[in-house]
């Protein structure tokens, strides 16, 4: 379909106001980079969902990661974007400045090399992510067991997207349609959204990550809604198969099992976490204890409502005042893919 026509259509849309949620942080990032919000009719509102793993990681997780990094002969390995996520008292970045042993990794496989070279040190990997990244942690387990490396532990905050989507659909909100999480769809496939589309009568479009892909998905969802349809359209068939990536799914299943998990700002969602299977629990770093944020100090942060599309970031009393990218109070301000961080950059005056 002609892109110019699509751009014109979504720019001039003048029917009832609608909210579309893009669940995936990478979609949010692409929407931001391509200036797509500036191309939409004011009657189309894009809501960034809970698909940024950094944003939904509980403060208790950060606390536990810091506790590990302070133990003797222990090093915590993490991806860079976890460094500034606030814990109850401090972030990993602040802890590191005070002497905690925190190292930024670029790939979980680095842990196996480091652990093999330094058997006296315990390496704790901060494992955060959705179905897309979980196979890489499964690979760490496979490689370490194959090589006889035992001085690695996994502190997991791994999340399943489908229970969260079900939760969002089942709560009272105005989200009318979904751009399905693209990275996760390459693993889970497109068929998996059919049940939700039917049950909640909301259309889904699986989209790639280029700006064009997202524009086409928005147009597709508008058309579905106009025609009272609630189907799953796979607009990214080159990467997303209806049945997903079976090999990756088996990998996940070999090493992990599901259980309840705490989503920062949202609460516990049943069956929405992945945990090491009992066979591998000697490598777990206390991931099961992170089902709540009991120690979290009361705060005015409303990231949870932002993630669910209930409020805009600028409706939070802390937004751009006490909470900025330089001193984030809530997780949505931390990540480059977090809704508040993106809004902050957009609304800079």
């Amino acid at each position: 379909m002609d892109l110019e026509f699509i751009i014109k259509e979504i720019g001039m849309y003048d029917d009832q106001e609608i909210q579309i949620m893009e669940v995936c942080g990478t979609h949010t990032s692409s929407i931001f980079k391509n200036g797509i919000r500036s191309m939409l009719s004011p009657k189309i509102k894009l809501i960034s969902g809970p698909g940024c793993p950094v944003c939904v990681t509980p403060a208790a997780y950060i606390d536990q990661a810091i506790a590990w990094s302070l133990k003797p002969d222990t090093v915590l390995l993490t991806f860079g974007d976890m460094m500034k996520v606030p814990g109850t008292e401090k972030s990993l970045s602040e802890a590191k400045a005070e002497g905690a042993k925190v190292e930024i990794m670029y790939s979980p496989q680095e842990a196996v090399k480091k652990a093999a070279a330094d058997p006296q040190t315990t390496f704790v990997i901060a494992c955060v992510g959705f179905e897309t990244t979980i196979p890489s942690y499964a690979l760490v387990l496979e490689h370490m067991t194959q090589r006889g490396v035992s001085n690695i532990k996994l502190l997991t905050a791994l999340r399943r997207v489908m229970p969260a989507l079900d939760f969002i659909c089942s709560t009272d909100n105005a989200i009318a349609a979904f751009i399905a999480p693209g990275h996760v769809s390459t693993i889970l496939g497109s068929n998996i959204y059919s049940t939700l589309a039917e049950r909640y009568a909301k259309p889904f479009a699986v989209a790639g990550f280029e700006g064009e892909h997202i524009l086409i998905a928005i147009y597709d969802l508008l058309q579905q809604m106009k025609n009272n349809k609630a189907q799953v359209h796979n607009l990214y068939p080159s990467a997303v198969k209806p049945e997903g990536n079976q090999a990756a799914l088996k990998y996940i299943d070999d090493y992990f099992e599901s259980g309840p998990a705490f989503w920062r700002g949202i609460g516990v969602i049943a069956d929405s976490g992945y945990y090491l299977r009992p066979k591998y629990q000697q490598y777990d770093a206390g991931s099961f204890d992170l089902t709540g944020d009991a120690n979290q100090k009361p705060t005015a942060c409303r990231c949870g409502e932002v993630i669910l599309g209930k409020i805009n970031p600028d409706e939070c009393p802390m937004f751009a005042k006490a909470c900025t990218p330089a001193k984030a109070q809530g997780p949505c301000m931390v990540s480059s893919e977090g809704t508040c961080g993106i809004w902050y950059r957009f609304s800079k005056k």
Partner: protein
Amino acid sequence: MKIVMAHGSGGNATRELIKDIFQKYLANDYLDKMEDAAALPVAHYPLAMTTDSFVVTPLEFPGGDIGKLAVCGTVNDLWMSGAEPQYLTAGFILEEGLDIDLLDRIVGSLSKTAREAGIKIVAGDTKVVQGNGGLYINTAGLGYRKTGRFFGSENIRQGDIVIINGNLGNHHACILSQRMEINNSIHSDCADLGPMVRGLIDNGIAIRVMRDITRGGLGTVLNEIAESGSHGIEIEETQIPVDPEVKSFCDILGLDPLYMANEGKFLCIIAPEHADMALDILHQHPLGVHAQIIGKVADNAKPLVTIKTRLGGKRIIDVLYGEGLPRIC
């Protein structure tokens, strides 16, 4: 052979290290006097002075090393203010365990780069600290402002043209590739920008401001200029040159070339009537073949940097927050 703490003692080991490596490469009339300070002739021009510290790892990378980087980074800072580099100091902080052959190569590279850039190394220092084989270099650079002008952001005005000399992100992508042990053919763009800048100055291009696009990338540099110059800047995504391999690398890791560090790229904001001539000059130099006009100084007084995206959208370009690190997914 490795560096040990004795190499920093000031005694015999220090003298031997200086003789075997530093004097071998850096000998000149100023340094050979081995005085506590270099006696420099009276300058007939206004001066510009800068300092920088270099802490890159790995110490050697495709396209350069920390020695070449230290010289290029310092001379580029001088050129950006319109000053022709003259004198350089180099302080080396060596961690014990540093491979002496590696140090030899780095000092050799630093010396060669300085010679090619026409800057004299007039003072140096060496210290050894406990550590794990690392190496850091601190420099100071002094230059002559032969035009008498100082290029500054306050000079920019509505309608001025923004030009960059080539593809963004190569240095940052190269360093990350090396750290992540990813095999690709990305080379650092580490280079002396002097010949291109001299070409612009000598041909009378009306330069308002120049900045080398190092840490924080183009996005951060443009914001700094916009704020200091109290003008908005509008750029066009389709005009920003990025090497296809660097673009793929960034796409995979979730990095944005707009915020990637470079070591051989600069932007200059010039009078619009000189745009074609400036491009011609840059295109004649091997490091300027991809030079592009990427935007202009806007007509609004708000110091916002905006980008018109490839699809026709518009967004604000903010400064880089935190480190430019790969995201999780």
